[in-house]
């Protein structure tokens, strides 16, 4: 077990994941700042704190919400660049945890954001700036425990979130979830909520609800993908096959519910399963051939 968890991996792979995951978080926070400012103006009675935000009895002033979000974005720039990483990375992770928990503290938990927060927290405790960073350009470090374990940790966190989603279905609905009716009703209800607010409904929602055959197969595939997520820890072709299936599942969610999970849809959630540093080297070699 120890040998498997600490199997070596190149520092460049972890560095690439730092840039990819941190870069995603950075763009995401910047894109959400306007909305964070808007919810900061909601009446105090609407606050339903979750996670770390439970320390608050009352909402923060809008200026404080904005300042924390901007500070988080600045810290994430340092995170991506690997600048003073041992200080800036935990602060960036704390800022992201606070900012996105605050966003989820107004009556709706955004499950699209859990995994990116968990991944940034994991990277913040890892030696992810020992290559391709400002820190490593100044001083070369070699992590005593290597660079493989944080990548395994990222994969384990990804797998855990999918398994938990599968377990929730079995705990709340049992194997009846597999009859397809629960899924059909969820798809119908989710699209109804969008329709009453004039939001676009999913392109396949109406035809599927009008001809409901096939929901059993979709339900079975969904549960199989979620509960089979630990396959990702095995690595190799099997893990990548699972990643492809999970990605297709998220595409299906878009087509049937118009619910977007950008983190997995862009492939960032599954990047720890791949030798991502090779893509960087390939791009670099094409730009600067020997």
């Amino acid at each position, binding site marked *: 077990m120890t040998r498997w968890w600490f199997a070596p991996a190149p520092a460049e792979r972890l560095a690439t994941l730092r840039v990819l995951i941190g870069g995603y978080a950075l763009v995401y926070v910047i894109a959400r700042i306007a909305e964070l400012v808007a919810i900061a103006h909601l009446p105090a009675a609407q606050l339903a704190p*979750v996670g770390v935000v439970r320390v608050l009895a009352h909402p923060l002033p809008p200026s404080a919400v904005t300042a924390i979000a901007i500070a988080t974005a600045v810290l994430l720039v340092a995170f991506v660049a690997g600048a003073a990483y041992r200080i800036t990375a935990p602060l960036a992770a704390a800022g992201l945890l606070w900012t996105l928990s605050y966003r989820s503290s107004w009556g709706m938990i955004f499950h699209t954001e*859990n995994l990116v927060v968990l991944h940034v927290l994991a990277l913040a405790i890892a030696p992810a700036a020992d290559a391709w960073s400002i820190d490593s350009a100044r001083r070369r470090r070699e992590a005593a425990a290597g660079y493989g374990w944080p990548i395994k*940790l990222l994969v384990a966190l990804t797998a855990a979130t999918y398994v938990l989603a599968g377990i929730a279905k079995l705990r709340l609905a049992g194997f009846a979830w597999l009859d397809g009716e629960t*899924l059909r*009703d969820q798809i119908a209800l989710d*699209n109804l909520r969008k329709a009453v*607010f004039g939001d676009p409904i999913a392109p396949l929602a109406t035809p599927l*609800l009008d001809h409901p055959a096939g929901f059993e197969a979709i339900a079975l595939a969904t549960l199989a993908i979620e509960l089979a997520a630990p396959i990702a820890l095995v690595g190799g072709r099997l893990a990548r096959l699972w990643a492809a299936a999970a990605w297709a599942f998220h595409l299906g969610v878009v087509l049937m519910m118009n619910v977007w999970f950008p983190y997995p849809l862009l492939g960032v959630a599954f990047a720890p399963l791949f030798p991502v540093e090779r893509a960087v080297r390939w791009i670099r070699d094409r730009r600067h051939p020997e």
Partner: protein
Amino acid sequence: MARDPVDVARRAAAIASIALVAAVVSPVARDPDADGFPLSTYPMFARDRGRSASLAYPIGRTAAGARRVLEPRFTGTTEVLQALNIVERAVAARDADALCRRIAAGVAADPGYADVATVEIVTATHDAVDYLVRDQVGSEFAHARCPVAR
């Protein structure tokens, strides 16, 4: 005797890894409806909620009484589920009038909704399939009604 730095580093990494994974899977031990962030039970698509739903949301009415749907941004968020929760909580807290006035002010400032004369905060029970597939809108009960002052 000095301890091997590799062992020390691996022990620290193992403790950190186990702690983080244990925290992430810990919601499995609690009520599946007791959701949290980022430690979640992921209950969102798990429970059968039936195909009929009672929802609270704002609608616009033209001077002739025609119904117009209003985007979630008028409630203070661009997210539909969050907007629904905001309206439901306002109705539950008997605060629908204040929410109605706030939405009406937003509608008044938006030229795309120039034909909307009145905003209503309604609760309605819809059959989701009938609404989406057959355009059958359930009856809507108004908790609050306010004019759009321009």
